[in-house]
């Protein structure tokens, strides 16, 4: 009896298709993952750190710890997404290379896009929001600490599920935009694109929860005297961003759900047969997708406002117009989505309307740029690394912005659409816009979180390598695009004449990557060697996060500050108010308890998602019951938290400042 092993099926999957085989790079990744897991598990066991991990990190509801976990995840994802970028640049560095075949290249640009936007930029910014917002509004935590932890674990669960596709089952390969009909079952019959539908859905739920959390936190937990118009700009941008999240993410929830229905259950939303409309996917995706890019850029704008004001030693210029402009940008961002598919055939009336709304967005953005410049005018500029990132942002983002206006014109877009011109445009907005801001924020807020600064000298290397490398990578792509080079193409012929600029671009990418390595080295070096000065206010800051110790005590503020004006901490310093702590001002502090439920939900969502990806429906349903169980357990949770005694607060406060005697 002959058994053909490749025909063996168990639970409807061919087992030789379960693990991705036949590719040395992937095999290397599989081995490294196993080794890494063994290393981590082994290390934790050897150093007896399981209990510590569980108590201090896995079950934490502390917004600062949650923020750190987001940022660590984002840095790791930055590495993976960056590797994808380097691989693409290597493949296209010379004509007709066969380093990566077309299928592999497709998987790589897909994961590059998904990871950089959803698993790098989003968690990086949400992590920063988590750490800083309660501090800036003078609160002890967010409105829903346990929900906050759930948001992180759902993000992590979705990210892990997406990342595992590389070695189990195969990565999605239809682009980060996953257009139909390519993304449908008929043209992508494997399970790779199931990962897309399900992993992103899980993470998306976490993000929606974050949006709700921060809206309520900002509306209801501001300290005494902090009216809306006295909030710092990073808090304002977080507030508006959170509203955008609540408005946009449910659209993606539906779109991904319908994709799952088509791929797994044979429905006809986006199929070519049965009356489906493939363009409907593009419409729904971009209804979410355009607000999504504003969700990542607005917090970045908030970071720039903080950094530029602090290092110009001057109040932010035009506070009110800054708020109006971010409200305007957010409002308009919901009305421009069709500009991503002018060429799909909606016709001149639709295209004209959306051209106009798209071009309008440049106006409030321009107002912000002028406000930043006016903030610097006649200020005392300090060229710290954080400030340098903010200064580099302005001219580089400008290039992204004006090429955006070029693309906004629908008729012209028929030439630029899906060429490398488009790719260069969005990298010139995303990298100087979001990535530079993230770097600035890391240098700016690092001492607050860890009690020591990142090294400024290594920071210079990070800066120059990255900025020069970035421009070298993406500037040539404008010209390649105008010459006719298309996106998502794994190779090109020598006759096109594209080769020289592709090579320049590839070299630029290596330089940019070395900038990222410099950042990683900076973090390593500073953790090991930087002096632990534990300065509460290393930069002579203006906002409330600088009014408490560095690192921040788990309860944030011993005494909730009272705000008298905008730039609350600057006011406190100028008038010598509220800077001292008197013993009789210390009260018992009520803090929320840790919880194992969020990490349980992350695990159970991962398992359910995994089963769904492989279309093992019964198992998925059972795991889904695990989700319901978690919800029920949460419903019955009446834990009211715990109290921190006055003595403990006094002891912690005494470690960084004198606690004055009672004032009778």
């Amino acid at each position, binding site marked *: 009896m002959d058994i053909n092993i490749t025909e063996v099926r168990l639970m409807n999957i061919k087992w030789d298709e379960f693990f991705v085989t036949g590719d040395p790079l992937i095999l290397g990744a599989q081995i490294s993952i196993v080794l890494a897991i063994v290393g981590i598990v082994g290390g934790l066991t050897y150093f007896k750190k399981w209990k510590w991990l569980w108590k201090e990190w896995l079950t934490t509801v502390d917004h600062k710890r949650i923020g750190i976990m987001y940022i660590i995840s984002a840095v790791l994802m930055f590495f993976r997404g960056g590797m994808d970028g380097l691989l693409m640049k290597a493949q296209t560095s010379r004509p007709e290379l066969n380093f990566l075949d077309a299928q592999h290249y497709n998987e790589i640009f897909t994961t590059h896009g998904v990871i950089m936007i959803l698993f790098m930029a989003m968690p990086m910014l949400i992590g920063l929001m988590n750490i800083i917002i309660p501090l800036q509004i003078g609160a002890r935590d967010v409105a829903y600490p346990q929900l906050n932890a759930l948001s992180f674990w759902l993000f992590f669960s979705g990210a892990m599920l997406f990342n595992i596709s590389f070695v189990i089952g195969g990565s999605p390969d239809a682009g980060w935009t996953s257009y139909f009909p390519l993304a449908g079952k008929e043209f992508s019959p494997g399970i790779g694109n199931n990962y897309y539908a399900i992993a992103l859905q899980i993470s998306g739920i976490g993000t929606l929860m974050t949006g709700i959390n921060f809206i309520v936190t900002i509306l209801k937990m501001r300290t005494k005297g902090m009216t809306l118009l006295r909030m710092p700009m990073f808090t304002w941008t977080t507030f508006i961003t959170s509203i955008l999240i609540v*408005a946009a993410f449910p659209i993606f929830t539906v779109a991904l759900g319908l994709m799952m229905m088509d791929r797994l259950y044979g429905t006809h939303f986006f199929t070519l047969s049965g009356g489906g409309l493939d363009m409907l996917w593009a419409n729904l995706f971009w209804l979410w997708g355009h607000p999504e890019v504003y969700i990542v850029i607005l917090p970045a704008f908030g970071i720039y406002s903080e950094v530029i004001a602090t290092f110009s030693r001057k109040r932010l210029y035009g506070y009110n117009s800054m708020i109006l402009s971010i409200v305007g940008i957010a409002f308009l961002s919901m009305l421009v989505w069709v500009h991503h598919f002018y060429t799909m055939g909606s016709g001149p009336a*639709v295209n004209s309307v959306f051209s106009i709304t798209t071009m309008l967005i440049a106006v409030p953005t321009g107002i912000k740029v002028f406000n930043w410049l006016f903030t610097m005018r006649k200020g005392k500029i300090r060229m710290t690394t954080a400030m340098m990132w903010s200064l580099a942002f302005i001219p580089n983002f400008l290039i992204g912005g004006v090429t955006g206006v070029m693309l906004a014109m629908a008729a012209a877009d028929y030439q630029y659409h899906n060429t490398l011109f488009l790719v260069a445009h969005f990298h010139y907005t995303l990298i100087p816009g979001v990535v530079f801001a993230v770097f600035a924020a890391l240098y700016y807020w690092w001492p607050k979180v860890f009690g020591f600064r990142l090294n400024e000298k290594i920071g210079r290397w990070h800066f120059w390598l990255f900025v020069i490398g970035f421009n070298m990578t993406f500037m040539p792509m404008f010209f390649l695009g105008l010459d006719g080079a298309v996106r998502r193409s794994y190779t090109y012929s020598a006759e096109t004449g594209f080769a020289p600029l592709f090579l320049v671009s590839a070299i630029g990418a290596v330089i940019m990557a070395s900038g990222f390595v410099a950042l990683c080295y900076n973090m390593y070096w500073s953790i090991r060697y930087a002096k632990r000065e534990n300065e509460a206010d290393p930069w002579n800051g203006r906002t409330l996060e600088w009014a408490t110790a560095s690192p921040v005590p788990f309860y944030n503020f011993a005494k909730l500050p009272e705000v008298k004006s905008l730039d609350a901490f600057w006011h406190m310093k100028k008038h010598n108010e509220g800077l001292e702590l008197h013993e009789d001002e210390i009260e018992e502090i009520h803090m929320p308890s840790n919880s194992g439920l969020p990490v349980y939900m992350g695990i159970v969502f991962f398992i359910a998602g995994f089963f769904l990806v492989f279309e093992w429906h019964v198992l998925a349903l059972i795991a889904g019951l695990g989700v319901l169980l978690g919800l029920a357990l949460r419903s019955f949770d009446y834990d009211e938290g715990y109290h921190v005694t006055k003595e403990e607060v006094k002891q912690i406060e005494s470690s960084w400042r004198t606690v004055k005697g009672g004032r009778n």
Partner: protein
Amino acid sequence: MTKKSGFPIGHVLGYLLSLLLTFAAAFVALKMDSLTSHVILWTIGALAVIQAALQLFMFMHVTEGEKHAQLINILYGVFMAAVIVAGTIWVMTSGMHYH
């Protein structure tokens, strides 16, 4: 925000009016052959919006609690709904691709 104790007149009124609006819409849609479908659709649409607003105020007490934030939130949600529904239909049915 003191609630008058006693008979829940708001709820009863809301319920009866909702029933009325429901059956009125059904009547207009199914029995009024004299009207064009265009008029019928706009009429039943308006009746739906009125009933929804009615229930929002009389059942859900949207003006209690953080009344401004809640009302702005619902209005913004409705605005988004209009953009999504009207926008999707307009974008998808314009041009030559929709058969």
